[in-house]
């Protein structure tokens, strides 16, 4: 980390649902522009809650969320999107009854009239499969295509920060590999990506850095390669089989 403030960061973040029991109990982390950062951890570690708190769907009880020089901790979700924080939820992440094209148009509503067509065209360029199915109801797409539409929808607004909650859940290994290759391409355009993943091996193979959360707190952090080689990782993810030099997804 350099001296300049990071592009997006959370400091001592505590967050949870309305019941008042915090799930994220003090997490500090950051993402730079053009950086792909993975958040890993066993079930119940608070990964999903963390990313939802950054998106504004779960209230932050204390701590701070900063994005592009401003404190967005108290901003409602729809304003964070307008500022460039795009979120892809894990499930129900497309409007199933609307067409592929309407899904993208809804996301583009927050852009100026002149930007809309160009941004949607660029999303179709990135995902040619979707372009061929633009009239189809999103609910009829395959799991992989649906995930692509959810990512395309998030990219329509040209976000500065892209948040993804377990995008590989329910996808075939082939679809996962394709999705992760797409994420690497997106990162190269300067977008900061924060990726919550269960699929540790695939995530570490593409991530520049990764954070490991346990019980709502930071446990470890490091580069993708370092963590992949770390013997403690195997213990943390018992049964998930993280090994050194894991064969992952080619970047």
């Amino acid at each position, binding site marked *: 980390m350099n001296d300049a403030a990071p592009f997006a960061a959370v400091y001592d973040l505590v967050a949870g*649902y*309305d019941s008042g029991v915090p799930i994220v109990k003090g997490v500090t982390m950051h993402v730079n522009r053009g950086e792909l950062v993975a958040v890993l951890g066993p079930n119940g570690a608070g990964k999903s809650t963390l990313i*939802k708190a950054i*998106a*504004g*769907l*779960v*209230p932050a009880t204390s701590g701070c969320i900063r994005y592009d020089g401003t404190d967005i901790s108290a901003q*409602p*979700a*729809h304003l964070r*999107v*307008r500022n460039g924080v795009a*979120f892809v*939820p894990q*499930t*129900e*992440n*497309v*409007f*199933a*009854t*609307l067409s592929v094209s*309407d899904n993208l*148009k*809804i*996301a583009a*509503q*927050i852009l100026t009239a002149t930007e809309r067509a160009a941004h949607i065209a660029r999303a179709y360029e990135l995902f040619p499969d979707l372009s061929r199915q633009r009239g189809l109801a999103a609910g009829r797409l395959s799991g992989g295509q649906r995930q692509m539409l959810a990512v395309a*929808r998030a990219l329509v*607004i040209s976000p500065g920060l892209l948040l993804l909650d377990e995008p590989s859940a329910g996808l075939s290994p082939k679809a996962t590999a394709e999705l992760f290759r797409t994420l690497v391409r997106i990162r190269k355009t300067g977008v900061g990506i924060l990726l919550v993943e269960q699929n540790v091996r695939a995530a570490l193979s593409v991530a520049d850095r990764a954070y490991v959360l346990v019980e709502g707190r930071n446990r470890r952090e490091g580069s993708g390669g370092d963590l992949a080689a770390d013997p403690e990782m195997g213990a943390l993810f018992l049964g998930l089989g993280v090994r050194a030099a894991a064969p992952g997804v080619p970047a």
Partner: protein
Amino acid sequence: MSLQFLADGMIAGATIGLGAVGITLTYSILRFANFAQGEFITWGCYVTWLLAAAAGAWLPWSAQAIDPLSVGLNVIFAALVAMLLTGLLAIALDAVLFRPLRTAGTTASAAWAPASVSAVIASFGASMALRALIEAAVPARQAYLSTELQIAIPLLGGVRLTPDQILLLAVAVVLAVALQIMLTRTSLGRSMRAVSENPALARVVGIDVSQVIRLTWFIGAALACAAGVMLGLVVQIRPSMGAELLLPLFAAALLGGVGSVPGALIGGLLVGVAEAATVQLLGAQWRAAVAFLVVIGVLLLRPSGLFGRAH
């Protein structure tokens, strides 16, 4: 038999349809059956009546009936202002009563669902309170929007309509078309469909869900006010007028498919025509049974309604 029942039924049906739009919108966005919808009809009618009286007293020329109609500019102006005020009443009711019952949706629908039973009960309470307010505030005397007798004009097939009724049908068609264009062609309409399907995702794509909810209330109540004015032109204005229409409103919304705006309008027309046909064939005492039969029939045979999608 005379085809007059078709004309009468369409007049009544247009009123029911416009009132039912609010029920279907509230259900599709907030997932609860709003039993206070009838009171928006009553309030809309009373506010129109009061404003029209005030305007008539202030500017007597405005109360002159516009030939061939039975009402003057004061009523038309009052109706437009009343639509605005009834819409604002609904927004205020949501802010003080329904919004506290909602929890911010963090997952698609799970976080919203528990509120719906409390919201239904709350809407019962709101309905009683709104009616009691009218009863307390307005002196009990006969109230009419128009007392002038109109000669019905013979149209095709022995059907007769008064000039007022012809205007009402035209206004209902204009409102229905405008609403349909708004829902299908504008970003507000797309946002409403998005919030209806998945409120949490709607926030994630940058839609101001609270704003969409306010607009939903406003549109539903403003149309209910229009329905109230239509009703007030044909019957005596009374505090129970909207509540008495509640069953036909729900029958129309169910028949059209809850959540479908064109469905509510068409459902309203069908219920209205069925009621009028029943009155003509069996007698007026059977009118109230029609809406019951429609509700039972739809629930038994086609719970998703004519235009609804299965949930």
